[in-house]
């Protein structure tokens, strides 16, 4: 029989219990403390050399946070740097979608934990990063060894906050062209030579839509003219300097010429059933690209590499590239160093090297990401570059011409939210909603999103 409550236990038993009780309590507290302390450990864990001011040969690990197929690693630039600087180890973490990447970044910046030494910033978020979040990034405007003069001026302006702080160095820009399937064009009786194709819609998105109608009427099969109305919308809206915000920083997306024109063109294309109603950067879109489900798509420089990856062998020899109706920029990124970094000096050295003209030229050669450095744009390797996958198209010449006429975009704090909502509005029209109704619901959605 077991002891009941009345019978006192031996001393040993009691201390045993007390001990266990204490153990349970301390364990609990200890675990908590361990969890609490972890965040700080992480910060220090990224590199041991941070405290040494001599910046010498102490081993340093630099972490870089990027999104998508950013290209730096793929182009072998990290390896090259690590070979030249044996004390540096570079570790990259990539998140597929920029939307997820940036949300996580914004959550981490104010707390200063979980951050990489270097963080990539997409152009849609750069205004926010330079202003609201500026304090969390190292100011590069007078940082040692940083040369801002070789970049094209508007790229630097975008990364400059109202207080003059420069939060990032430009990697690439996205001068736009139109990629098209020569096999589908041929079947529809359209020209296939890239100069003739470019002439089809030169200077006018309306001409592009008209060519689409011709394609639709003459093509025997299921392919659509353009992959999606929303990507067309973005291509058009980005060909104007004033899109969602005006110079004074007030939202003008409801009446700006850019949005008006882009909206009406995209809606027209949707109603004429020229669009494939695809969502971008998902598997279905990738498959459609490989299988020739759409004849054209808007093609910023960095998209060329994406098409090559996704279209692969099945689309081999089918793709070509022609100038866009109007020059525009889509995408492009920056690299910034976080204030929380323990290795700021080394990190600044690395991003300076990565964005230097020579490296930008290499990135263009290997990944077709177009340089944001004016100096790199003038290099022969860039100007004379051709792209094998796109039937040896002279992309250097083509994209340089597009880049020269890109309007200087006015960026605003909620560009991304506004652009995504407008894109969803176009998708609504594609899915059969009345355009006026779609516009009204889009405006309500944006007003709700940007309200305080």
């Amino acid at each position: 029989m077991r002891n009941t409550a009345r019978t006192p236990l031996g001393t040993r038993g009691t201390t045993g219990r007390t001990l266990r009780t204490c153990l349970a309590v301390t364990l609990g507290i200890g675990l908590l403390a361990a969890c609490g302390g972890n965040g700080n450990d992480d910060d220090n864990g990224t590199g041991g050399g941070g405290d040494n001011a001599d910046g010498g040969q102490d081993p340093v690990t630099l972490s870089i946070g990027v999104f998508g197929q950013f290209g730096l690693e793929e182009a072998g630039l990290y390896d090259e740097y690590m070979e030249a600087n044996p004390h540096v180890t570079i570790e990259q973490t990539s998140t597929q979608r920029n939307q997820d990447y940036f949300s996580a970044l914004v959550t981490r910046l104010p707390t200063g934990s979980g951050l990489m030494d270097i963080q990539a910033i997409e152009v849609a978020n750069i205004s926010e990063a330079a202003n609201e979040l500026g304090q969390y990034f190292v100011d590069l405007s007078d940082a040692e060894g940083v040369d801002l003069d070789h970049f094209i001026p508007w790229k630097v302006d975008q990364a400059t906050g109202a207080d003059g702080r420069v939060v990032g160095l430009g990697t690439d820009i996205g001068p736009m062209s139109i990629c098209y399937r020569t096999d589908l064009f041929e079947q529809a009786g359209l020209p296939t030579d890239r100069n003739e194709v470019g002439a089809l819609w030169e200077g006018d998105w309306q001409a592009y839509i008209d060519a689409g109608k011709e394609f639709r009427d003459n093509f025997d099969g299921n392919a659509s003219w353009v992959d999606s109305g929303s990507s067309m919308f973005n291509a058009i809206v980005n060909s104007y300097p004033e899109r969602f915000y005006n110079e004074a920083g007030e939202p003008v997306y409801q009446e700006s010429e850019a949005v008006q024109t882009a909206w009406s063109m995209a809606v027209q294309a949707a109603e004429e059933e020229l669009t494939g109603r695809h969502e971008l950067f998902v598997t279905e879109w990738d498959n459609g690209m490989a299988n020739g489900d759409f004849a054209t798509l808007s093609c910023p420089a960095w998209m060329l590499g994406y098409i090559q990856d996704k279209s692969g062998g099945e689309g081999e020899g089918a793709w070509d590239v022609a100038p866009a109706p109007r020059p525009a920029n889509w995408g492009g990124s920056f690299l910034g160093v976080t204030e929380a970094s323990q290795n700021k000096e080394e990190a600044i050295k690395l991003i300076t090297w990565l964005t230097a003209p020579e490296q930008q030229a290499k990135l263009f050669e290997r990944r077709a990401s177009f340089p944001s450095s004016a100096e790199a744009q003038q290099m022969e390797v860039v100007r004379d570059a051709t792209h094998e996958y796109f039937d040896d198209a002279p992309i250097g010449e083509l994209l340089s011409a597009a880049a020269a006429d890109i309007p200087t975009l006015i960026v605003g704090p909620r560009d991304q939210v506004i652009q995504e909502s407008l894109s969803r509005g176009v998708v609504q029209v594609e899915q059969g909603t009345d355009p006026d109704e779609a516009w009204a619901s889009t405006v309500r959605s944006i007003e709700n999103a940007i309200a305080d």
Partner: protein
Amino acid sequence: MPRPQRGGEPPLTAEEKKLRRRSLRYRLDTKFSPYGFVAPFFLFFAAFGLFPLLFTGWASLHRVSLHAPTDMEWVGFYNFTRLMSDEFFWNSLWNTFIIGVISTVPQLLMALGLAHLLNYKLRNSMMFRVAMLAPYATSVAAATLVFAMLYGRDYGMINWGLGLVGIDTIEWEAGSWTSKIAVSTIVIWRWTGYNTLIYLAAMQAVPKDLYESASIDGASRWKQFIHVTIPALRPTILFTVVVSTIGATQLFGEPLLFGGTPSGGAHNQYQTLGLYMYQMGWSNFNLGRASAIAWTMFLLLIIIGLIYWLFARLIGRSTGSKGA
């Protein structure tokens, strides 16, 4: 048990004193050590449950941006009152309700049926039980990504299968009802097995003689299920309904990964409350409004919990009178 009276006792011997000291220590031990054993849970709960809850409540009364979470401006209950006229909030509440109903009801019915089947003597019954639980052990992300591909418009397996029997392409993601059904199937797939096992455990606790006497009285298997199994399972069913309701109210991972964005489709057609909260906080960077939505969800769950509690008491009374 009667305690010894202190006042009226004769003086204690040394031996007795020692014993009494020990017994005091023992009493203290039995009194406090249980608290020590449960302390870790409460410490964790305070850090990861209570503190976020209270902080969220505090944040919901302020204008606060994700860019600077410590920079708060008092706005009172404005973040709550504005929800009343917020069409996107009502839309997501409606979506949450609809998806909750069309995922929970079939799921629990199927679980009940499956548990009944598994309750028969079967060959390899263990294998079936483990198989039932496999979806539950799969991660939401992995399952949802596979389902999103199955439901693909042009290259999805489901549309391909429908095409074989002559049904036209269905744009699952685009439609209001089709997208809700698609999200529900992910939930159903993941949780049916879990509920099945809970029902099965409860069924095995039903006394065998009840079935015996029922079959002697000539009750068929179906009648036995309706009149013996279901009444015996009543508390278990209520438990699964409560747990499923909580899960449905907080539904997040499936709709987020199904479309890939917190907007829940171009028309917000499958944006749930959880997604709307996430969009408000992490796309629109408005932490105050997101917190208000989070607290509204919490209050909703409390109300639902109270309703279930009243319901359970009613059931308890009605069955109590029969002496079951």
